[in-house]
Structures are given as C-alpha cells and as structure tokens.
C-alpha cells in the first residue's frame, strides 16, 4: 500500500489546554548524560563474545558484468572463517514495498546488498569476509579473484535519459507512459501530478519565466559510519545490533533477503549517530548474519568513511525545469515543473514524496508536475531530510524572485499575494487544513533581520518551503511500575535525542506525574509491535500520538482499579492531576487515589497496569518555513559567506521548544552545506573522486553564523498536542535563499549547484565579460 494514508488511521483531536510539562524545556534530557560522558552505545561500540571482523569487497568499476568470483584463496587464508558472495543469498523476484520515504523492490534490495549478475556502481558489494582480525579480513579481500567484463557506464541524469545511453537494466521499460514503450530505457517511471489546465493558465499570464536548474548528488554526511553485528545461532535465530532509523523495516528486509521468517530475527537499534534518511535501507545486516551463520560466530562489520560515501545513500542529483506565469499584479496563473531525478542504480528516488512539495504553499489553479525516475551508475539513492524537495525549491523560489523583480513587487509581498491557507486545493490531492504559512511570511517581514543595513557585495534573500508530516504504523507501551514511576517504551527510533524527551513530556502531561518519574526507552523489535522508521518528520508527531493513546489506555486501567477499590462503576471514576477521583459528588466521598497508590495495589486488583497503542497515524500535519539570509560575495575568490540567517517555521506546537529550534538550526546548516560546497564528483571511469570529508566538505563551525529562529504555533488539529513535523522543512529553503541573496549582492543568477567559489567566480567573470562586450 506504499505510503497512502490508511482509511483506518488514528487521529486524536487537538485539545487547547494549559500544559505543565509540554512546551517547557526539560533539563534532564533522557539521552544526554550518556552522550556527554561517552557512555552512550552506538553500534560500533557494541562487542559480542567471540566476534569476528567482517569486511566487504567492493566493485572498482561503475558498470561491469561479473563473469566469475573465485574465493578459494581467501578461504584458505589462516584466520578467515567465512566468505559470502551472491551464491549465498536467494534471488528474489520483483516485489514492491515501502522503504521509508522511498519505494523499494526486493529484486533490487538483494542486488544492492550484494551484486548478482552485474556491478552497477563504484563501491557495489561483491563479496564479504569474516576473519579473526581486521588485518586478516583485509588481506583476504585482496585474495578474492573477480573476473569483470567492464561495460560502458552513465553517471548523469540527462545523459542516462538519452535514447542511446548505456542501459543498466535491459528489462526495464518506462512505467507511466501510454502506450507502453517497446524499447528498454534508464527512465524507470514517468509520474504526473496535475491541477486545472496549465496551458490556459499560462495564456492568462502577463509574464512567464522558465528556467533550468542542475544539482549534484549530496550525502547525508552522518558522522557515524554504518555498523552492524550479526549473531546467528544454531537454533535458526539471529540477533542484530545495528545503526538504523527503523529496526522493524530493517528486520523485515533482512528476513526477506535471507529467506528467514521475521520472527526469527531480533534487531536492536543502537544509539544512532545521525541518519537524516540515509539509515533506512539495509546494507551490512544480511551480510553479517550470513557470515555468522557460516562461521558460527558473531560477526561485527563497520564501514569506513570511504565506503559510506561510495556505497550508501546520497540523495538524487537532478535536472529541473520550472515555469511560472503571473499577472502583472503578481498573481500566479500557472506553474509547471519537470523533475528529472537520479535514482542511482535501482529505481525509487524520492519523487513520490517531493513532487507534492513543488508548489504547495501557493494557491495556484493550474499546476503540472512531471517527474522522471532515472537509473544510472551510482549508489542507489536513499532519503535525505525532505528528500528531493530542496532542489525543486531552488527552482521555484528563485523563479518567483525573478518574477517579483520584473513585476517590481516585494519578494515577501509576492508570496503573500499567492499564499496557501486553510482550504487551498493542493496539486497532490487534499485541501489544506489550518496552516501557518502566512504567519511565517508576516513574521519574517516584521523581523529585525530585515532592518539590518547591507554593505557592498552583500545581499539578502527570501525563500519558503513546505513539507508534509508522515504518520504510519506506530506502537508504544507505558508500564506503570509498583513505586509510581512509569516506563515508557517507544519503537520509533529516536534519531537525535529530542523525541524520547518529548514522548516523556506528553506522557507526563497525560498521566499528571512529573517528567522525572517517566523513563523513556527504545524498544528492540521483540518489545513492541511494528513501528515505521523515523522518516518524514513523523517521530514526535506520530510517536507522540501513540504515547498519548497508550497513556490514556493506562489511565483507563487505573480508573478501573480505583473503581474496584471504591466498589463503584468504572465510568464513575475520572482521572485528574495524576489521581483517580469520583466523577461527581453522587459517586460518594472518596479521597483521590494517586498513580503511586493505584500502582501499589494494581497487582492484586486485577494485574499490573500497562497502556498500549498499536495504531496507524494519519494526522500528520503540513509544515511551512520562511528563511531570510544575508550573504557577502568575495569578488576575488568567489567565496560566499553567510552573514545572517533567520528561520521562521510553523511547528504546530513545540513540545520541547529549545530542541525544536535546534532542529531548525541543524536543517538549515545542512542546507547551507548543500548550497555552497557539497557535491559528488566522479571521474570519467565513473569512480567517485571525493569519498572523504577532506574533499567532500561539509560545513564546520567557522563556516556559519549564529542562526536566529522563531517558532510559529498554528496547532495541527489532528494531533492531541497540535504537533507538526519539524525536522525536515528547514533544509529546503537554503539552496534557493542563498541563490537569491547572491543575486541581490552581485547580480548573478546561479542555477547550477553547488554555488562553490569556482562557479561563483566563473559567473562573475562571465557577467563582467558580457558587460564589457555591451
């Protein structure tokens, strides 16, 4: 069913009320002490008795047939305990499933984990070894003989779409075209979203601007390289400790590619050292289990940084065309987008999720969005924080800036003229409910940032963004302990440390006990029902809804115990301020029974108290953000320095406000890195040339300024505490906002990402030459 909202979804209405814990900043964040002392256990910190070291042999070629693999010399090396190749895993037929924010096909999942007929990118796994030491494992990799037939390769999306491009899959025919094509293509699918009639809309416009944009693939850049420990026991069960954003999906995929039943595998998600969407797919887990099965020892595998860059989830590089028409008073009449996205070596880019973001935040009657999902000889793309959306906003928000300039309308005003509000029809289906987009624009206009004077070669930009919040399957349990404390068990992986605090805050609010009385802990796959991975900004929103439901379930049980003690009917008891009380004076005179008092008696009065939720959340809540940036362009070097940065974002309601702002900061700085420096660079053999933090340069502290943030709170009506997703929206505007600011500073429009010094310098030189020629 993919990511369609369930017709049996759960929504809990927003209740406006004074809160004691929700909306405050807890001083004792549950994860923090362990993280500042080095005691938090990430996957690479975990060791099992007798474990071996596993390493992966990776393809040095971008595209090659594998004629044969000879592992005999590696197997003969002293200290080598197991070697696995394609022959150790079953082939799987085509079967499409949800893989977090992207769709997956098990035929491809098994081929991505371990190459079968072909290697499809530089870094594609070809074999794996388990040995008694890392040095022996590395030596064994060198003894594996692979006979490759090197094939022509294709790296860039426009090249891959050409009719004569080297084909990655001879059996792939473009889906979504009528009539179905009879020739295979690297274009896996054509997708269309439509509203009204764009042709008529463009005719009604006084001004139409169309521009083309190109962006390079970028990596999530989490500091923790992927690590997994697999332990297969003779009874046919396996346990896995791994770095993942979604251990249930990880388990399901691992079981599938190993031909095991899901119940046979227990996955424990270790503390996660960053994921940002890149830790939703399986990489090492099935290799570690299979090596463990063959060697009868636990096997620990950890990627190097080079392997992380070459073999795990970059986001799509893109080629995008944006066309927008406006009347002379600045009203949009039509908007069109063509989105050509690299999917990497297998289909399944983030297009289904990012196409809805294209123009959503504007009220436009006529919209056409066409997407092409294109395979090429790169690692299979993974989600990356609002996957695919920053690149579309790069186009849309800079074209709007050009229109505003031509029409002599202020860039905030032009967005307000077209701003989406409650009732606006989106181009992806639903009408919008109450949203805070207009508020973010108005508060940006009133912000002190706008009053700051700019100097020479300095410029200011504005850009805005939308991202939807996912719901999906979510489970939680609250156990009320005999001493009146509560153990909250959640299953949606807490990727950054704020979610478990926010869960405990919501549980404390519901139960009426202090925050400190609740300990929120992550469950492994054995402890709770299925939880969708932490993607689509769903963590606090969806996980929080399950926590609230579980808390209310526990409260009902506590009221039942109180009723039994008082010998009254259950519906004659209510829960207020952390205690059971008679619903009215008619029920009788009873002293309130506190949670601790009930917990102490519950065992005898029917059994220990626990509250549960196993739900599919459908009340996500769309979120919007407006960014303002000031930059200075160095005309000598082409360096763009970010001087001031302001983020105004609708969080629905902020459960833990300081953490919400911290999410804004982090998203924007990732976006700044994406805008100014980060890019995958390939040589003419299709080999990645910058697989390390020296040459793939992410922002460091001296690259960025302090960031000003404001939280807008327009509650999500479908969430009990009004929460909207907050993690992703603010990575969307930086590309566009910085491009707009560079134009304001030095009069050049950059449409090729990244806006790195050589590109800026060249654009400045070109502009100077053009001016001189005129």
């Amino acid at each position, binding site marked *: 069913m993919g990511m369609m909202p369930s017709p049996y979804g759960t929504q809990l209405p927003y209740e406006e009320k004074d809160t004691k814990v929700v909306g405050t900043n807890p001083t004792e964040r549950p994860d923090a002490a362990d993280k*500042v002392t080095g005691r938090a256990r990430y996957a*690479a910190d975990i060791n099992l008795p007798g474990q071996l070291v596993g390493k992966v042999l990776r393809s040095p070629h971008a595209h090659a047939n594998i004629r044969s693999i000879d592992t005999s010399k590696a197997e003969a090396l002293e200290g080598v305990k197991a070697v696995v190749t394609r022959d150790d895993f079953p082939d799987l037929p085509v079967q499409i499933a949800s893989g977090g924010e992207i769709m997956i096909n098990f035929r491809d999942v098994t081929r991505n984990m371990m190459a079968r007929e072909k290697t499809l990118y530089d870094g594609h796994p070809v074999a794996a070894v388990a040995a008694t030491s890392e040095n022996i494992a590395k030596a064994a990799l060198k003894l594996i003989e692979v006979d490759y037939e090197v094939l022509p390769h294709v790296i860039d999306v426009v090249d891959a779409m050409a009719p004569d491009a080297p084909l990655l899959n001879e059996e792939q025919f473009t889906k979504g075209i009528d009539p179905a094509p009879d020739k295979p293509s690297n274009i896996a699918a054509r997708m269309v979203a439509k509203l009204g009639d764009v042709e008529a809309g463009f005719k009604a416009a006084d001004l139409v601007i169309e521009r083309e944009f190109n962006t390079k693939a970028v990596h999530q850049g989490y500091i923790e*390289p992927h690590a997994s420990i697999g332990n297969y026991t003779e009874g046919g069960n396996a346990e896995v400790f791994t770095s993942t954003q979604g251990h249930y999906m990880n388990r399901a995929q691992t079981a599938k590619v190993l031909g095991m039943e899901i119940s046979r595998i227990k996955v424990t998600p270790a503390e996660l050292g960053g994921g*940002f969407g890149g830790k939703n797919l399986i990489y090492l887990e099935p290799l570690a289990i299979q090596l463990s099965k063959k060697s009868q020892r636990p096997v620990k595998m950890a990627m190097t940084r080079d392997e992380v860059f070459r073999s795990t989830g970059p986001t799509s590089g893109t080629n995008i065309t944006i066309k927008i028409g406006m009347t002379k008073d600045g009203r949009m009449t039509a908007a069109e987008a063509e989105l050509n996205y690299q999917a990497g070596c297998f289909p399944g880019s983030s297009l289904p999720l990012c196409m809805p973001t294209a123009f959503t935040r504007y009220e436009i009657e006529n919209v056409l969005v066409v997407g092409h999902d294109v395979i090429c000889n790169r690692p299979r793309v993974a989600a990356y924080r609002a996957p695919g959306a920053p690149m579309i906003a790069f186009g849309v928000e800079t074209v709007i800036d050009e229109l505003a300039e031509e029409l002599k309308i202020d860039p905030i005003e032009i967005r307000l003229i077209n701003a989406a509000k409650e009732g606006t029809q989106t181009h992806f289906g639903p009408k919008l409910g109450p949203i805070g987009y207009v508020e973010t624009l108005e508060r940006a206009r009133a912000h002190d940032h706008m009053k700051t004077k700019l100097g020479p070669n300095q410029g200011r930009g504005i850009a805005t963004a939308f991202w939807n919040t996912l719901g999906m399957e979510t489970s939680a349990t609250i156990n009320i302990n005999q001493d009146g404390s509560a153990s909250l068990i959640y299953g949606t992986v807490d990727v950054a440390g704020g979610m478990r605090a926010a869960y405990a805050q919501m549980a404390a609010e519901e139960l009426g006990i202090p925050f400190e009385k609740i300990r929120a802990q992550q469950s492994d796959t054995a402890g709770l029902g299925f939880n969708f991975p932490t993607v689509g900004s769903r963590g606090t929103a969806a996980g929080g809804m399950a926590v609230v439901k579980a808390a209310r379930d526990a409260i009902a049980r506590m009221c039942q115990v109180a009723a039994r003690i008082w010998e009254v009917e259950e519906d004659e008891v209510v829960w207020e301020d952390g205690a059971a009380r008679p619903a009215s004076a008619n029920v009788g005179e009873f002293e309130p029974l506190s949670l601790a008092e009930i917990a102490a008696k519950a065992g005898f009065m029917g059994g220990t108290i626990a509250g549960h939720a196993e739900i599919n959340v459908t009340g996500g809540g769309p979120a919007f953000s407006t960014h303002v940036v000031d930059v200075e362009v160095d005309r000598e070097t082409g360096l763009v320095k970010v001087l001031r940065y302001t983020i105004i974002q609708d969080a629905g309601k902020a459960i833990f406000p300081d953490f919400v702002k*911290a999410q804004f*900061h982090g998203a924007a700085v*990732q976006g700044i890195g994406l805008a100014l420096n980060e890019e995958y660079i390939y040589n003419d053999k299709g080999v990645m040339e910058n697989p390390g*933090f020296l040459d793939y340069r992410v922002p460091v*502290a001296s690259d960025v300024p302090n960031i000003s943030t404001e939280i807008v709170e327009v509650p999500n009506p479908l969430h009990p505490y009004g929460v909207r997703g907050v993690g992703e929206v603010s990575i969307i505007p930086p590309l566009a906002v910085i491009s707009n600011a560079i134009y304001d500073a030095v009069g050049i429009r950059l449409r090729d990402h990244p806006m790195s010094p050589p590109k800026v310098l060249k654009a400045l030189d070109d502009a100077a030459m053009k001016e001189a020629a005129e």
Partner: protein
Amino acid sequence: MKKTHVSTTINGDEFDFLCEPTQTLLDVLRDELQMTGTKEGCATGDCGACSVTLDGTLVCACLVLGLEASGKEIETIEGMADGDELHPLQRKFIEHVALQCGICTPGLLVAARSLLDVNPDPTEEEVRYWLAGNICRCTGYHNIVTAVIDAAQEMRGT
C-alpha cells in the same frame, strides 16, 4: 604481525597494552581497551570525532599510532566528569541542547576543554575557529558555540 608492549597513562590511570605497528591510538582505545567514548567518524583526521589530548595537546586519535602513546599522558572523554559531577562544559552542552545524536559530542567536548585551557575567555569567532576541526552534522553549531561561551563564563566565575 608482531605486537609491541606499550605502557601509558589514560585519564590518570596506568594502562598496558599490546599493539600492532599499524594500529592507531583510536584502534587501541576502542578495540584493545574498550574505551569506546572516543568515536571513529572518518579515520583520516577530518571530522574530529576521535579528539583526545596527548600530553595536553589536542590530537585526532586516528592520526596517532598506538606505539606513540608510550609514556604519554592521554585524556579522553571518559576522564572528563569528576565522578558523578559533570564538567561545566558537559552540563552546558545539555542545558543549551548542544548535542543531538551525540556521536560528535565526546570529540567536541575534548576540543572545547582544550580551548578553554589556553583561552579561558574566547570570543564567538575564536570558539568557531578552534572547533572547526570537529564536524557536527546535527546542530548547525549555534548551540555548541553558546554552550562553550557560557561554560567559559561559569568557569571564570564571572
């Protein structure tokens, strides 16, 4: 590979270990001594997640050989708190939400302490440039800089 016996001091305690000539101090800390608070992010000296001090000098443990630890005084994240009393930097990191996933946090704390050892009253710019060897992908650095300046102020007693 032949192993060499090395004696060193870590967080004030004496340690002995056997080390291959190719093993880095980071490998030794994590794999031989099970001191996993020091993290590996890149193993090429670019991310700072493995920051420790060697005789008081801030280094990336991945760029130091295990053999070089012989006779030296090493300080790691595990030695930063005083019993159950957190170092002011550790407290201020929590208070200002200067950590999210936390994988870079031990390295950043060790680097920040090393800054305050030589410069107890750093400006925002000095903090940003000193910490430029430590990549954090979650926080955008704003809260880290705030926490370091606030901790410095508390430690100066002003």
